[in-house]
């Protein structure tokens, strides 16, 4: 990256600096490591980025390998999407929060708006509110929305061609089927719908039940992608939940490598199903965590963008730029927030968000400061939105894209992280690929080990958490947790019972039996057949739980749980 003269000069200066250090701090080593364990020095020089090729490795925003940014002009033209997660209680309760955030200035692309809606955990697992296991969890951590009628309660009067509906749930197909059934009823053409499904069929590793057993889950995920590439080419069909790896304990290098390995598993499956990479890659997105180690996460992000572009082009032969772009939904760190002195979390989250903006993220969701207490109050949710707004409107940071490029340290660390990430990817390859790494417990145990180490370091004081193990106070300010309306469970159960009693039962059963046939076809390798059958089942008023349980006749549902109730 530098000419000979500069490098010679740098060498001379480095020796001088070394001399000063040895004289002033004899015998002391000020080197340290990043959170991932990458050795770092107290200062960087051109010598550290000597081997970096400007054209090949750095380049410019909007030009392959897109390390500096996906877009030639980014925030100056179009800021990131505000994507505060929200969802609780009944659909109409969630609508209140949607409206509150919209009123507070939450913005999407080009005047549109993205609602990052989170479902409750029964819906994650294909459990209807009237199932015995749902007790205690209905509408708690997300919205209870399980029928087309619920979608109407939540989305009525919104223009679905201008609204980005992001559906955060686990068992994606049944809820997506109801959403499409709802849109069909409203007369909105499917290819005009905008938004995002998670498609976490087999990737919900942070949940105790883990949803679908991996092979079947991958088939279901591929089916959904096949359906979208045929009928909804602009829909963002898949989100790789790398943030969850981070929350489980993965460090920056692992978050990137494990996330990419997941994406490769899904992309390989799509190719095997006969799809063109340029048809499905643009619908893939990554949910990435920016955590405490400020520079390491920025460098991870840049390395990730470059590595993904190279994989898309070299491994999959992609030609479309949108296939090579790493679309990132930043979800900043939650495990590093503390219950003690919770307002301090606003400061932590601001720094995480700042890192994400330096990294050129495309969408951002910040947890509430009350995250370690519960789901956010309206005040906490809006404060998190305000963090994004202050960075955008007041700091001037967004005037220049990738402002840290060219930093000796940042470029050097970016390269090291890419190299380290490739090593982990090779390890996964060598053990037989992602599915082996997942099923054998390799991926998960790496995360768990880090989580235990983290906790031990906090307990010993080696790792500082302000307010918890350092600068703690005798008496904490009391923070009232957000509570959903106590009537939610009762109403949700009543609604689902009424929904079932008002339908033509024979028609529902016929549709569910067709769904079994479609699932059997998918199991034999016929992709894109289950989604249409699930939509027909939704139109015949089969609930999300019924659709999910029907699919379980063919595909295996995660680890066994309740010995008393069999599904």
């Amino acid at each position, binding site marked *: 990256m530098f000419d000979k003269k500069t490098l010679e000069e740098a060498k001379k200066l480095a020796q001088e600096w070394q001399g000063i250090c040895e004289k002033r701090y004899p015998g002391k080593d000020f080197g340290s490591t990043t959170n991932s364990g990458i050795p770092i020095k107290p200062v960087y020089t051109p010598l550290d980025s000597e081997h970096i090729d400007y054209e090949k490795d750095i380049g410019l925003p909007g030009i392959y390998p897109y390390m500096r940014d996906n877009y030639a002009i980014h925030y100056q033209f179009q800021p990131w999407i505000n994507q505060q997660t929200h969802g609780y209680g009944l659909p109409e309760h969630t609508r209140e929060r949607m409206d509150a955030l919209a009123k507070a200035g939450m913005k999407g692309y080009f005047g549109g708006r993205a609602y990052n809606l989170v479902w409750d955990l029964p819906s994650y697992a294909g459990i209807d509110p009237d199932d015995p*296991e749902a*007790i*205690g969890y209905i509408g*708690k951590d997300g919205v209870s929305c399980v029928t087309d009628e619920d979608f109407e309660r939540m989305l009525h009067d919104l223009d679905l061609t201008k609204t980005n509906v992001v559906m955060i749930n686990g068992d994606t197909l049944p809820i997506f089927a109801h959403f499409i059934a709802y849109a069909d009823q409203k007369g909105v053409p499917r290819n005009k719908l905008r938004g995002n499904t998670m498609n976490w069929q087999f990737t919900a590793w942070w949940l*105790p039940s883990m949803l679908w057993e991996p092979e079947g889950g991958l088939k279901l995920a591929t089916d959904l992608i096949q359906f979208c590439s045929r009928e909804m080419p602009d829909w963002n069909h898949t989100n790789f939940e790398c943030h969850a790896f981070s929350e489980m304990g993965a460090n920056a290098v692992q978050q990137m490598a494990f996330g990419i390995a997941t994406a490769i598993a899904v992309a390989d499956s799509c190719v095997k199903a006969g799809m063109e990479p340029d048809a499905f890659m643009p619908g893939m997105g990554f949910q990435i965590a920016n955590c405490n180690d400020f520079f390491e996460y920025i460098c991870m992000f840049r390395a990730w963008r470059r590595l993904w572009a190279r994989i898309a082009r070299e491994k999959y032969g992609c030609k479309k730029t949108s296939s090579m772009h790493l679309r990132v939904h930043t979800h900043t760190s939650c495990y590093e927030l*503390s219950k003690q002195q919770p307002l301090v979390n606003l400061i932590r989250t601001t720094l995480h968000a700042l890192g994400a903006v330096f990294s050129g993220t495309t969408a951002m969701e910040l947890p509430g400061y009350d995250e370690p*207490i519960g789901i956010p109050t309206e005040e906490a949710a809006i404060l998190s939105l305000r963090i994004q707004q202050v960075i955008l409107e007041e700091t001037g940071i967004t005037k220049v894209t990738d402002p840290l490029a060219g930093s000796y340290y940042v470029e050097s660390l970016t390269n090291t992280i890419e190299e380290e990430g490739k090593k982990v990817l090779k390890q996964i390859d060598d053990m037989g690929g992602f599915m082996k790494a997942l099923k054998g417990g390799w991926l998960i145990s790496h995360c768990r080990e880090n989580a235990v180490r983290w906790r031990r370091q906090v307990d010993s004081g080696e790792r500082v958490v302000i307010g918890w193990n350092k600068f703690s106070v005798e008496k904490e300010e009391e923070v009232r947790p957000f509570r959903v309306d106590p009537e939610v469970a009762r109403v949700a159960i009543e609604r689902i019972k009424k929904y079932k009693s008002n339908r033509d039962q024979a028609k529902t059963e016929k549709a569910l039996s067709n769904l079994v046939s479609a699932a059997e076809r998918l199991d034999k390798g016929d992709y894109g057949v289950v989604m249409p059958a699930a939509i027909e089942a939704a139109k015949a008023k089969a609930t999300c739980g019924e659709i999910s349980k029907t699919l379980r006749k063919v595909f295996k549902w995660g680890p066994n*749980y309740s010995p008393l109730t069999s599904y």
Partner: protein
Amino acid sequence: MTMASNRKARVLVAKHMLEGHDRGGKTLITMLRDAGVEVIYIIYGVPEDVVMAAKQEDADVIGLSFFSGGYFENVPRLLKLMEQNDMKDVIVVVGGLIPDVDGPELLKMGVKGVFGPGSDLTRFIDMVKSHAQARV
């Protein structure tokens, strides 16, 4: 009894199938194991599952891990079932994402310990061991 000192304490750690993140529960399991406690981990659907597992495994302590609420609905049901099953010598402890304001109410219901975020885990381990000693 003299056998008491040789017997390892047994904890049933149970997490509901509809819970969110299990980082805390899984970390706790490792720490209990390293402290010489035998741990049985289950994912349950209804409190009946927990009672069945606790009896089969002869657990000294039941530790319920919560992330996504559900304790006010599931804990009283579990305690009642334990009473019906004559499990008076088994204690229930809850941990995880439990706001401070809910702690006293859970204790009033009959839970013997509430361990929210940032709790001292050695206190929990000591509690398990001393109860197991007393139980034999």
